C-alpha cells in the first residue's frame, strides 16, 4: 500500500511544472509531459488539465489577419490541410476564397478556457458541497513553512534543523513548541504526524473519499498538487535534484502532500465535525477520467477549432514568407558568393537568435569576413570555476553531463577582489538595533542613491553582468596533468580530448571546407541586468544559463596549442601556422565586446586584431541600433553611437523591467551553410547553426547537432510560446509585483504560490509560433538523423517543432509529415 502511494505521487509529479530554482533557470518545454501526444492534441489536453489557453483569443487572430501578418494564402493552406471537422465542413460547403471570411465572422463567438481539474474536480467538492475554502486557509500557512524550510539566505534565522527532512521539521516544531502550530497542532490530527507521511496520506484519504476509494487517491493528490503547481513542481524538482540548492534540503512530494492533507483534515473536522460524508458515495459518483488518460473524450469546441485553424495559418504565414526569402536568396547567390582567396577573418558565434543580427552587421563591414554559428559552449563541456568563485558551476547545455573542470587562476596577484557588499541590501538594516543606527545615519543617503540611480544610472554592486567575469590578469588551467579525479571531475583536458572538441567545432560548422583566415574569433555571449531575478534566462542557454565567455576562451586556447594542432593534422585538419584563435565575449544587453588573452596575440597578428576590433565596434553599434528599433520608447532613427549608450543605460537601470528582449520573437532555426542566409535580414528571429551538408555523408554530424539543438532550441521556443499564450497559468504574469522567495523563486505578494514560466515583460512582443527547423540536407539523410535519437524523433514526429528539409543538391523543399518527408508543393505566392 505504501508503495502505491509513492507510485501514485511519482505519476502525479509528471504533471507539475519542472522548473528549478532561479539560479539555474533553464528554458524547457512547459508541456514536456504532454510530448507523447501530437502537438495540438497535447496542448488541448493540457488546457483541460490546467485550465489554460491553447490558442490566442479569436479577436487577436482577426487583428493579425487585418494587419497582414496572416495571409489569405496561409489561411487557405491551413484549412486545406487540417483534418478538423470544421475544416472539412468549410472545404465541402464553401469555395476556397471565402474561407478566411468564414473564419473572420463573429458567428463563432469568442472562447475562454474552462477551469482546470484543480478547480472542478473531486477535491473542489469541499467547496461546492460544504462551502469549505480549504485553499484560502491552508495555502498561506503551508507556503510559509515551505518557504522557510527551503530558504537559501533571505531569512535571518535559519529554520531549526535544516538537515532533517521537511516532515520531521514540522513534527519537531509541533512537538517541541509550547504554542500551537496551527492547524497541525490540533489534537485530532496531531497523532498523524507521528507516523510516516504515506500512512498519513492513506488514513486521511480513506476518510475523505470513503471506503474502497483507493483508485481515486491519485486523482485527489493530483488535484491538490495542481492547486499550487509552483510549489509542487519545485518540491518534486528538488526531490530529484537536491544539487540545485547550495544549501541542500531533503524533501519529497509525499511529505508535502501528507502535511497538506493533515491540515485539510484538521479544518474539516473543525468545521464539519467528525461524521462528515465522504466525497465519493452513492449520491456522489466518482469523477470521470483525467485529460491525459487514454479513455478521456477530448472534444474540441467550434471556437477552438476556428482558433486552431487561425494558429496554423499564422505559423504558415511566417513559414511561407521565410521560404520565399530563402528561395529568392538562393537565386541571387552569386552576388554573395565567397571569394576564392582566404577570408580575412572568421568568427564563431552562438546559434542564439540574438547573435544573427550582429553576424550580419559584421559581415557587411567587409566581404572577407565569414561567420559561423555553433552552440555557444563551443563543444567545451565543462564545469568552470572562476578566480572569484567558491565552487565550480556547469557551463554546458542541460542534457550534457560534464566530466571536466576548468579553473581560472590569476597570474597577477596584485589585483584584489572588489568588495561586494552593499549596506542597503545587506542584512544589517533588518535587525532592530543596527536598523535603528542605519536608518538614523545612512537612511538619508539612500534617498540620494535612489535619485542618482533614477536620473543617472550607473554600474553598481547590485547589477549582474557577464562582463564581470572577464579578467585580463588571469588564465585558464586547461591541460590535464594527472589522471586522478577530483570531486568527480578531471581537472582539465588531455591533448586528445582537446583535439576532439576543436575538431567537432571546425568540422561540423563546415569551416574546414574552405581556407582558414589568419584570425579566427570565438564569441561567447552573456547578458547584463539589474533588479532582475531572471538574470540567468538572459545568458547563454547552451552554457547552462551562464555567460559563454569561459567556453569561448577555452576553445580558442585549445586550438592555439601546437600539440592539439599536431593531433588535428593527423586527423586531416590542417590549421595553418599563421592562424590564430581568439576568445571573446559579446554582451547581448550592452552590446559590448570583450576579448580574452589579448596579450597573448602574436605581434604579427596585432594589426589584424585591431582592425577586427574596429570593425566589430561598428557592427556592435549597428546591432544596438537595430535592437533599439524594437523598444517602443526609443526612436528607431537613433544614431548607432547613441544606440549603444541607450542600451548600456538600460542594462544598469533599476527601473527597467526589459533590459533586453531576450529570445522574444524567435521563430525558426536554420541549419546549413552560411551563404543560405548571408546578407539576409531575418529580424533576429532565427537560430542559425552552421552546417556543411557535403562534409556529412552519413548524417552523423547532423544527428549529433539535432540531438542538442532540438531540445534546447525547441525548449526555448516553447517556453516563450506557452508563456505568451497563457501568461497566468503557463507564465509568471507581470514582473512588476514580483517578490523574491527564499532565493529559489518568485511569488506575487508575500504568500502566493511560486510562479513558473516567463513574465509578460519577456513574452509580450513574442509571436507564439512553433520553431520552424530548416535543415539543408537530403531528405533521406535528414530522416536518418532524426531517427538516430528517440527524443528528437518524438519532438519531430509529434510536431512539437516544424521540420523542413531543403535539399542541398536541387533546392527542393520537403516537409516532415506523418513519419517521413513529403515534397512541399510551394504555392506560387511570390508575385
Amino acid at each position, binding site marked *: 500500500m505504501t508503495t502505491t502511494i509513492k507510485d501514485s505521487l511519482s505519476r502525479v509529479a509528471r504533471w507539475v511544472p519542472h522548473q528549478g530554482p532561479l539560479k539555474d533557470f533553464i528554458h524547457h518545454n512547459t508541456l514536456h509531459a504532454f510530448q507523447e501526444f501530437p502537438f495540438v492534441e497535447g496542448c488541448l489536453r493540457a488546457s483541460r488539465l490546467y485550465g489554460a489557453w491553447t490558442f490566442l483569443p479569436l479577436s487577436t487572430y482577426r487583428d493579425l489577419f487585418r494587419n497582414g501578418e496572416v495571409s489569405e494564402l496561409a489561411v487557405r493552406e491551413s484549412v486545406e490541410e487540417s483534418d478538423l471537422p470544421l475544416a472539412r465542413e468549410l472545404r465541402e460547403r464553401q469555395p476556397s476564397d471565402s474561407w478566411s471570411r468564414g473564419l473572420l465572422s463573429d458567428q463563432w463567438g469568442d472562447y*475562454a478556457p*474552462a477551469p482546470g481539474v484543480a478547480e472542478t474536480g473531486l477535491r473542489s467538492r469541499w467547496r461546492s458541497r460544504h462551502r469549505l475554502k480549504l485553499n484560502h486557509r491552508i495555502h498561506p*500557512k503551508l507556503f510559509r513553512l515551505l*518557504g*522557510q524550510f527551503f530558504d537559501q*539566505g*533571505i*531569512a*535571518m*534565522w535559519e529554520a531549526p534543523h535544516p538537515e532533517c527532512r521537511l516532515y520531521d521539521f514540522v513534527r519537531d*516544531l509541533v*512537538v*517541541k*513548541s*509550547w*504554542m500551537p*502550530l496551527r492547524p497541525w497542532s490540533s489534537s485530532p490530527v496531531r497523532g498523524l504526524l507521528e507516523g510516516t507521511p504515506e500512512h498519513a496520506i492513506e488514513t486521511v484519504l480513506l476518510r475523505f473519499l470513503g471506503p474502497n476509494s483507493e483508485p481515486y487517491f491519485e486523482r485527489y493528490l493530483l488535484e491538490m498538487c495542481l492547486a499550487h503547481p509552483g510549489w509542487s513542481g519545485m518540491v518534486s524538482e528538488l526531490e530529484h535534484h537536491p544539487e540545485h540548492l*547550495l*544549501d541542500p534540503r531533503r524533501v519529497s512530494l509525499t511529505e508535502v502532500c501528507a502535511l497538506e492533507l493533515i491540515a485539510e483534515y484538521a479544518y474539516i473536522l473543525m468545521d464539519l465535525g467528525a461524521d462528515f460524508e465522504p466525497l465519493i458515495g452513492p449520491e456522489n459518483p466518482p469523477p470521470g477520467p483525467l485529460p491525459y488518460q487514454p479513455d478521456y473524450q477530448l472534444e474540441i469546441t467550434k471556437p477552438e477549432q476556428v482558433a486552431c485553424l487561425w494558429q496554423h495559418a499564422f505559423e504558415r504565414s511566417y513559414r511561407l514568407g521565410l521560404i520565399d526569402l530563402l528561395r529568392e536568396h538562393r537565386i541571387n547567390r552569386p552576388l554573395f558568393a565567397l571569394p576564392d582567396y582566404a577570408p580575412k577573418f572568421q568568427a564563431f558565434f552562438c546559434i542564439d537568435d540574438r547573435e544573427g543580427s550582429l553576424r550580419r552587421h559584421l559581415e557587411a563591414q567587409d566581404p572577407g569576413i565569414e561567420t559561423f554559428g555553433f552552440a555557444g559552449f563551443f563543444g567545451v563541456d565543462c564545469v568552470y570555476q572562476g578566480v*572569484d*568563485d*567558491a*565552487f565550480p558551476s556547469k557551463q554546458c547545455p542541460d542534457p550534457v553531463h560534464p566530466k571536466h573542470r576548468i579553473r581560472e587562476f590569476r597570474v597577477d596577484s596584485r589585483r584584489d*577582489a572588489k568588495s*561586494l557588499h*552593499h549596506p542597503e*541590501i545587506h*542584512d544589517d538594516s*533588518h*535587525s*532592530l538595533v543596527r536598523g*535603528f543606527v542605519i*536608518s538614523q545615519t*545612512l537612511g*538619508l*543617503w*539612500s534617498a540620494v542613491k535612489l535619485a542618482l540611480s533614477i*536620473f543617472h544610472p550607473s554600474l553598481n*554592486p*547590485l547589477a*549582474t553582468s557577464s562582463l564581470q567575469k572577464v579578467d585580463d590578469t588571469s588564465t585558464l588551467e586547461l591541460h590535464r596533468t594527472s589522471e586522478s579525479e577530483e570531486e568527480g571531475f578531471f581537472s582539465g583536458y588531455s591533448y586528445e580530448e582537446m583535439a576532439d572538441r576543436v575538431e567537432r567545432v571546425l568540422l561540423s560548422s563546415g569551416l574546414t571546407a574552405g581556407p582558414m583566415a589568419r584570425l579566427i574569433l570565438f564569441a561567447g555571449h552573456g547578458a547584463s541586468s539589474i*533588479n*532582475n531575478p531572471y538574470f540567468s534566462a538572459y545568458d547563454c542557454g547552451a552554457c547552462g544559463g551562464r555567460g559563454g565567455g569561459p567556453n569561448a576562451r577555452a576553445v580558442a586556447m585549445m586550438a592555439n596549442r601546437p600539440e592539439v594542432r599536431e593531433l588535428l593534422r593527423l586527423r586531416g585538419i590542417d590549421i595553418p601556422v599563421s592562424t590564430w584563435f581568439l576568445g571573446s565575449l559579446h554582451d547581448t544587453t550592452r552590446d559590448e565586446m570583450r576579448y580574452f588573452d589579448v596579450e597573448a596575440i602574436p605581434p604579427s597578428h596585432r594589426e589584424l586584431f585591431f582592425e577586427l576590433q574596429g570593425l566589430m565596434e561598428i557592427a556592435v553599434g549597428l546591432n544596438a541600433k537595430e535592437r533599439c528599433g524594437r523598444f*517602443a520608447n526609443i526612436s528607431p532613427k537613433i544614431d548607432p553611437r547613441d544606440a549603444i549608450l541607450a542600451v548600456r543605460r538600460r542594462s544598469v537601470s533599476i*527601473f527597467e*523591467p526589459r533590459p533586453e528582449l531576450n529570445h522574444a520573437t524567435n521563430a525558426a532555426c536554420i541549419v546549413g551553410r552560411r551563404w543560405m542566409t548571408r546578407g539576409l535580414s531575418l529580424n533576429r528571429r532565427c537560430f542559425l547553426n552552421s552546417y556543411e551538408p557535403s562534409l556529412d555523408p552519413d548524417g552523423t554530424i547532423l544527428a549529433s547537432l539535432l540531438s542538442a539543438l532540438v531540445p534546447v532550441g525547441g525548449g526555448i521556443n516553447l517556453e516563450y510560446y506557452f508563456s505568451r499564450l497563457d501568461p497566468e497559468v503557463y507564465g509568471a*504574469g507581470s514582473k*512588476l*509585483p*514580483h*517578490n*523574491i*522567495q*527564499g*532565493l529559489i523563486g518568485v511569488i*506575487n*505578494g*508575500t*504568500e*502566493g504560490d511560486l510562479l513558473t514560466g516567463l513574465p509578460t515583460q519577456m513574452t509580450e512582443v513574442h509571436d507564439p509560433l512553433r520553431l520552424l527547423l530548416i535543415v539543408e540536407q537530403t531528405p533521406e539523410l535528414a530522416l536518418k538523423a532524426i531517427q538516430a535519437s528517440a527524443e528528437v524523433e518524438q519532438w519531430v514526429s509529434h510536431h512539437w517543432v516544424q521540420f523542413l528539409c531543403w535539399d542541398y543538391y536541387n533546392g527542393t523543399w520537403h516537409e516532415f509529415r506523418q513519419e517521413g518527408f513529403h515534397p512541399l508543393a510551394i504555392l506560387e505566392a511570390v508575385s
Partner: protein
Amino acid sequence: MISLPLYLAPLLCLFGSCLIGLVPWRDERRIHQVALIVATLFVALSLLQIGQWLAGISASVRETIFTWGSYRFEFTLAMDRIAAVFFLVTAVLGGLVIRFSQYYMHREPGQKRFFATMLIFMGGMTIVVLAGDIVTLFTGWELVGIGSFLLIGFYRHREWPVRNALKVYSIYRVCDVGLLIAAYEEHRLFGTGNFSEQGLQAISAQAVLPIALLILLSAAGKSGQFPFSFWVARAMEGPTPSSAIFYGAISIHVGVFLLMRTMPVWEVSEIARVCIAVVGLVTAVVTTIVGHVQSNIKGRIGYASVAQVGLMFVELALGLETLALIHFVGNASLRCYQLLVSPSVVAYILRLQSSATEKGRPGPDRTLESRLFPKLRATLYVCATQEFFMEFIVNRVFLEIPQWTARHIMAENSTILNVWTRSFLLNLFLVGGVSWAGRDYTTALPFTLGVGVSYLIGVVGIYLLPRRLRQQSLDHLEGLSAHYSLSARLVFISFLGMSGFPITPAFWGADMLLAECMKIGLPVALLFSGTFFLNGIVLARTFTRLYLGPAGHHHLSRPELEART
C-alpha cells in the same frame, strides 16, 4: 513675494488625478506626461512653500467650506516643522517613485489607474500633513486609505491581491472609526478641532486619556503596530513602486505623524505615554522576531520597517520629537530604496554565496536563536512563523462583528441589490433615529440626500448588469469589472458615497450628524460611527466580491457556458 496658498499642492495632485482620468488608457505617453508634470510641479511647490515657511511667510489657510445652521465645516491647512518634514519627504520620494514608475510601468495594463491613484495618494498625504484641524486631517486620511485599497488590489483579476486589499481596508476602517470618535471627543473637550488651539488649553490628563487611546488605536492600525502588524506583509501585492511608497516609505509612517500632530493632546497623560511606548516597544520586538523568519524579501523589509516605526512610537512617548523626525526621514528613504531594488537580492546574495572571498551564507543571525533551549527555540520559531497570532487576535477582536453583521443582517450572500438596499435603509434608519433623538430634522437632510444619490448611482450601475448576473448570489469572487467596467465604476462611486468617503456629500452630512450625535451623548455617537464603520466594510466586501477577482466566463452566452461545464 506673493505667498502661495497651501491648498495648491493637494489640489494640484487631485486635479492631476482627474486629468489622467480623462486621458484614454491606450495613450501611455500622455498619462506619463501628465503624471510627470504634476509630480514635478508638486515637488517644486513643496520646496517653494517650505522655503516660504522658513522665510517666515506664513501661508496658512482657514476656509469655511460651508455652514448649515449652527454647523460650520472648516478646511484648515497650516505649515510647521513636522508638516514641513513630512511634506518634503512625501514630495521628494513620491516624485522619485513616479519618475521610476514611468519606465517600470511601461506597457502595463491598468497604469492609468496606477498613476491616478498615486496622485490621489500624494494629494491625500499632503492634506494629512498640512491639516490644521482633525476633520481636515481625516479627509486626507481617507484618501490615503482608499489609495491603499486600490493599489493593493491593483491586479484585480487575481484572487489574493483583492482579498488582501479588503483585509487592509477593513483594518483601515477600524482606524477611521477610532479617529472619528477621537475627533468628536476633542471637539467636545476643547470646543475646537484645530491643533494649534488645542495645545493652549489645559485639560486634565484623565479627561484626555480616552482620546489618547483612540488616537493610539488609529495610529497603531495605520502604521502596522502591534497587533495590526500582519497587514503590512499582506499589502505587498501591487507593483513594487507602489509598495515602496506606501508600505516602505510614506503611508506606514502616517501613524507616527498622527501621534506627533496630536502630541499636545496626549502629552499630559502619563498613562497614554506609557501605552504608546509599550505598543511601540512590543511592536519593535515582535516584528523584529517575525521579520527574522521571513523568507521573502518584501516581507522582510516590511517587518524591518514596522519595527523601526515601533521605535519611533517609543521616541515620541519619551518626548523626543526631533529624533523621531530624523528617524522617519531615514527609515522612509531606506525602505523605499530597499523595496525598489528588492529584485536584485537574488543576484546579490548568490554572488556573495558563490564568491571565494566570502564565507558561507551571508550572515544569518544565529547567535540568539542557537543559544536558546530547544523548546524555547521551537516556541519562538512557531510564534514568529505565525506572526505571534496577530491576525487571529485582530480577527477576533475587531473583524468578527462586521463579518457576522455582513452575513446575517446585510444578507451578504444574497444579491447585490439586496445588500445595497439594506445598507441604504440602514442609513435612513440611522438618520431618522438621530434626528428624532435630536429633534432636529434639518441636519439630516444633507446626509440623506448624499446617501440617496449615491444609492441611486449604485442602482443604475447594478442595472447595467445582465439579469442573470444581477440576480445571482454573491458566493465568491466574480471579477465582473473585467467585462462590465461602466457598471463597476458606478457601483464603486456609489460605494464611496454611501460609506461616507470625504469629498462626497455624505461625508459632510455624516460629519454634521455626528456633531449632532455628540450633543445627544456618546452612546448615540458610538452607535452612529459603529454603523458607519460596518456599512463601509459590508459595501466594500460586496463590491469586491462581485466586481473584483478572477474573471469568470460571463462574456459567454448561456448555452456556451453550459456546454463547457
